[in-house]
């Protein structure tokens, strides 16, 4: 096995049937109802072992090789030795990667990747949708291709939507005269949406998507918006947030803040 010359540890990938596993002395394991929750000293998160993994964990005392342990488990569970051996090696490799075994190097899990939704690029078609309006009639993207549109991801339960409602209402005349249709894709039903719209005199076309099935704003919070050209293509980047959506509306009518 290839030990790191500095630490004397091996990589978990090198664990095989001849490896003699021993749990680290500075690991705390709490077993409740036959399931273990394990914490390595200095770690910020725990590892949860189900009943079978906990059985294995309890055998990692440095007294037997994985091949010997596999034979014991195969006997007890009357299972095929090779299957048990492979499962055991895979499980112990995982325990080793978590930094819970003596002589095995900890491997940090890959960083979760996160990025703000970017939406479609300017000039690209936005994802098609077909959603009911207040009268129950299904409206599709192709029905709205006669002119430009400010398409807003909306929710009557969103405080930031509430805050920008008067700003969008102020811009309605300019949007209308500029040939820009204001369309909300919203949560809730007509009854839930009506008070906020009426309070500010907002009169967008409202399309209801309480189940969030429309891909155009999939994974995007509220408020968010696209300016869409008369052919259903994005004329702006996906614009997210109460600070930015009103500015997009203003830019749609040729203004600037």
């Amino acid at each position, binding site marked *: 096995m290839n030990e790191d010359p500095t630490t004397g540890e091996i990589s978990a990938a090198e664990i095989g049937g001849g490896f003699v596993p021993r749990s680290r002395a500075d690991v705390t394991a709490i*077993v409740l*109802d036959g*399931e273990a*929750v394990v*914490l390595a000293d200095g770690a910020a998160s*725990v590892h949860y072992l189900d009943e079978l993994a906990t059985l294995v964990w309890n055998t990692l005392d440095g007294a037997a090789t994985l091949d010997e342990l596999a034979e014991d488990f195969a006997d007890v569970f009357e299972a095929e030795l090779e299957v048990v051996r492979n499962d055991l090696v895979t499980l112990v490799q995982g325990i080793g990667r978590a930094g819970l075994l003596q002589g095995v190097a900890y491997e940090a899990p890959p960083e979760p990747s996160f990025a703000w939704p970017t939406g479609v690029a300017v000039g690209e078609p936005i994802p098609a949708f077909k959603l009911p309006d207040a009268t129950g009639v299904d409206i599709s993207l192709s029905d709205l291709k006669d002119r430009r549109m400010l398409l807003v991801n909306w929710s009557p339960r969103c*405080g930031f939507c509430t805050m920008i409602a008067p700003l969008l209402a102020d811009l309605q005349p300019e949007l209308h005269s500029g040939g820009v249709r204001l369309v909300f894709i919203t949560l809730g039903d007509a009854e839930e949406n009506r008070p906020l719209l009426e309070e500010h005199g907002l009169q967008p076309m409202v399309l209801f998507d309480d189940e969030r099935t429309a891909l155009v704003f999939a994974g995007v919070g509220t408020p968010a918006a696209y300016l869409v050209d008369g052919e259903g293509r994005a004329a702006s980047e996906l614009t997210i947030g109460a600070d930015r959506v009103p500015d997009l509306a203003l830019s749609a009518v040729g203004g600037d803040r």
Partner: protein
Amino acid sequence: MDKLDHLGWVVSSSFAIGDVRFAVRSTSHAFGEWLSDALGAYEVDDVEEFLYSVVVPDPPAGGKTKEFFILYKGSSAILRTLDPATLGRGLLTELEGLGLHQRDDAVYIVASVVDIAGAAALLPASAVPGLAKLGRRAGRLGVGIPGQLTAAIDMHAASVIPVGPSLDVPGDALERLAHALPWTGRDGLRFLDEPETVRAFVVPSRDPEASLQPARKGYALAQLAGRTLNLERVGGKGLEALGRFIDRTPCYETAWKDTTAALTQLADLLGEGP
């Protein structure tokens, strides 16, 4: 301030608590003045990231309001209240949370104690916004909405205790806020002030369709440990305290698919007594 102004924000202040630097903005000058006064020990030069936003309703003619004070964290409304003192307490409690990962005097968890049918249950903080949306139905179900999203487990007694204050804030800060924003309504938001014996710990289920059912203790412990803010600081002793808490607390899991149904089941369960 242009961006502040056109969305109704009129004041902002920047603070540093522990290693977290953040800004708070508000629609109220009076609230902004109170905030600078209450958290003067932590005020710093301009920070661009608005971590918190506070919406203060306009004062009504009659001295009472039915509009909510709203505390946002990012774009999520984490507190809605009719009472400015509750707003202030909620914000200060939230700010206490910013330094909890550096403390080792208790195990700090992102969870809330919720009154259900006269008994206390510990729920993950992720369930609380769903409770808050119940409005008056919460009262009919016998559910008291919590005002805070953090709690602590005592390292020795392994019981639920309040988060001990550590911020340097004037003792009369909340009274001053009540003077600064004198229009008040009443709501029943609950803050944890004393150690609490909880009769149930409810965790999210792995089954997205699951209704309320007993949870395995190992799974419940893993869920609680996963909601710990300072595990790195409290280490194995902290995990042992969580283990003792879980061992003696009835644990349940639910998918929270239907909040009302889950709470009704929980109320029935807790109403039956120990």
